[in-house]
């Protein structure tokens, strides 16, 4: 398997300002020393509780953070494998980033606010073509029509404005815009979360068809774990800025090993009468603030199997027998009982 993206020891910290003089009073460690590789042509699912750093990771991959959040501190490397070899995205200045931007595109969660309401959807989709290609006006128009057709919208729609479209249609427009410049990697941050179930499956099918057709690579962030399981080859689980588990999609979904992944997956409601409420692993306490991260394993205050040294040592990601990478030396202590098969076929 060929790598397309290699994240090495990525950390992202946001300064927090306070007091009358607005000086720095603290730091949010939104992403804390993450290392992971995305292979060419795969879909990597990224999951975890709200605030665990999924969006921050997604934006870092697209090198959008320094523009969007002044004062942000990013360390580590994000290597993107171009035809000429790997380049470190984080080390690029604005101008050098340009050609890379065309190859890495982002799809945003909110189909309502991510489209400019004053621009026709034709101009919205055309914009990246103007920025990144030298196509003539005529060729650009043709490409816009092709793209609309590809995402299942009539090309005549290009003169319309976003408010004339439903959520699902807007998300298709966002996808058409991301595809315009033929990217290799698409980072999709909750692309279907705002959609109805009946529309969600249309959009997921479209993403899968495009992947098969163009060999696209996806980093797919979502909070619906059954959707992530469906679309992903591998799943990465984050907790408070750390990567706690990484493995094959069905492994992580059916047999998670990290105690946090187990709790997370056991909480996924199932569309079966009665569901799996009785098998749920209940976590104690609230998710701690990333301003004041617990020492050692950041999960230890809520962990059902925490050992005395968990509050001291930061557990490294280790490969387990099943092939998953898990950041917990005690994961074998969890009886396979509770969650083991909670997401398997009911019968």
């Amino acid at each position, binding site marked *: 398997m060929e790598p397309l993206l290699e994240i090495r020891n990525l950390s992202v910290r946001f300064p927090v300002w306070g007091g009358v003089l607005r000086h720095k009073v603290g730091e949010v460690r939104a992403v804390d020393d993450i290392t992971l590789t995305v292979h060419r042509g795969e879909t990597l699912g990224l999951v975890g509780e709200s605030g665990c750093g999924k969006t921050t990771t997604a934006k870092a991959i697209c090198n959008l953070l320094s523009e969007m959040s002044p004062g942000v501190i990013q360390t580590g490397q994000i290597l993107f494998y171009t035809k000429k070899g790997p380049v470190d995205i984080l080390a690029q200045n604005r101008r050098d980033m340009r050609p890379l931007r065309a190859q890495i595109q982002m799809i945003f969660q909110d189909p309502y606010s991510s489209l400019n309401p004053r621009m026709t959807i034709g101009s919205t989709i055309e914009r990246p073509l103007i920025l990144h290609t030298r196509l003539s006006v005529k060729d650009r128009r043709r490409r816009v029509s092709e793209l609309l057709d590809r995402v299942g919208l009539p090309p005549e729609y290009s003169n319309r404005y976003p408010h004339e479209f439903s959520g699902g249609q807007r998300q298709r427009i966002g996808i058409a815009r991301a595809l315009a410049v033929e990217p290799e990697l698409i980072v999709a941050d909750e692309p279907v979360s705002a959609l109805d179930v*009946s529309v969600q499956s249309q959009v997921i099918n479209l993403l899968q068809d495009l992947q098969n057709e163009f060999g696209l690579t996806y980093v797919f962030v979502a909070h619906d774990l059954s959707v992530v399981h469906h679309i992903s080859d591998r799943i990465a689980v984050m907790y408070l800025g750390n990567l706690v588990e990484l493995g094959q999609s069905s492994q992580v979904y059916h047999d998670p090993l990290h105690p946090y992944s187990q709790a997370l997956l056991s909480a996924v409601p199932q569309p079966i009468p009665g569901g799996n409420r009785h098998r749920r692993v209940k976590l104690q306490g609230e998710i701690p603030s990333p301003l004041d991260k617990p020492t050692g394993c950041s999960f230890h205050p809520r962990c059902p199997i925490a050992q005395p040294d968990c509050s001291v040592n930061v557990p490294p990601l280790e490969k387990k027998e099943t092939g998953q990478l898990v950041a917990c030396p005690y994961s074998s202590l969890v009886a396979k009982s509770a969650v083991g098969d909670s997401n398997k076929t009911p019968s």
Partner: protein
Amino acid sequence: MSSAPEKQDTTARQDSPRKPLLSVRDLEVQFRTDHGPATAVGGVNFELYSGEMLGLVGESGSGKTVTALSVMRLIPDPPGKITGGKVLFEDIDLLQLTYSQMRRIRGKKIAMIFQEPMTALNPVFSIGMQVMETVRTHEKVTRKEAFERAVDMLTAVGIPDARKRMGDYPHQFSGGMRQRVMIALALVCHPQILVADEPTTALDVTTQAQIMDLMIELNQKREAAAILLITHDLAVVAETCQRVIVMYGGRVQESGTTEHIFNSPRHPYTQGLLRSLPGPHQKPKSRLNAIAGNVPSILDMPTGCRFCTRCPDVMDRCHREEPPLHALANGQLVRCHLLEEEAT
């Protein structure tokens, strides 16, 4: 825009001929728009029984919130207006009450958790103050008593150290905790009916699970005798509700017990919805089943069956004639011509 006379909801508890706590009959709500009046909800019928949790699911824009707001008499007027139907509670039609009579029922006997939690909590008052105010609006109690009631309720919904946190402001609480405060506000006067509009949609799965557990516990302890749970998350309903109502295009399209709806859905929309969920029946990375097409806007509803523009089983007749709710032998109600023969 009136609908055919409706059969009554017969799904509930045929074994116990209890009286429903709340019954909604032929509810119709219109909104004034630039393009004339639009019917957001029409022909909505259902009953809510004591001790049950009833799920109301459906497409975005299908009229779930409008239905809930009608029960509370909180439809913004203008542009909205309840143009027909009854909402019966304790033998009175809530739609006939004066505003001041309704104010005494709202919050006291029927309470609601709103879809946007941030707008319902006032950022400039402390959490404790807000819960105490709710008690004092409806009951003659001293400050001290109201304080104790608030502490008890916040403790009951799982706010740790509630007594110490009475003076905290909403922004000092996490999303999950704020949602619990919302539940405490709704329950502090021990309402008989709790209407919960998407109480967990903005929360992640672990917090969502905690909140749903709490609602089930309160339902069982009879803090809220009956709960109407509105959501578009089918899995949450499957796990917590005894009965389910499915809406589409401002109409109830199907209703029945959770077992019947999830194991043998009969309306093509419900069937399509359940089939399009990823799950054990769909191989990972395969194409998902989808309902083709888009939801029609309320200004542009098809005549005939509301689902006819997307229905895989559509017949000629569906474009002309809107089907009534057909009652099946097992108590399921289905608004689809295909069920005509089977209807009892």
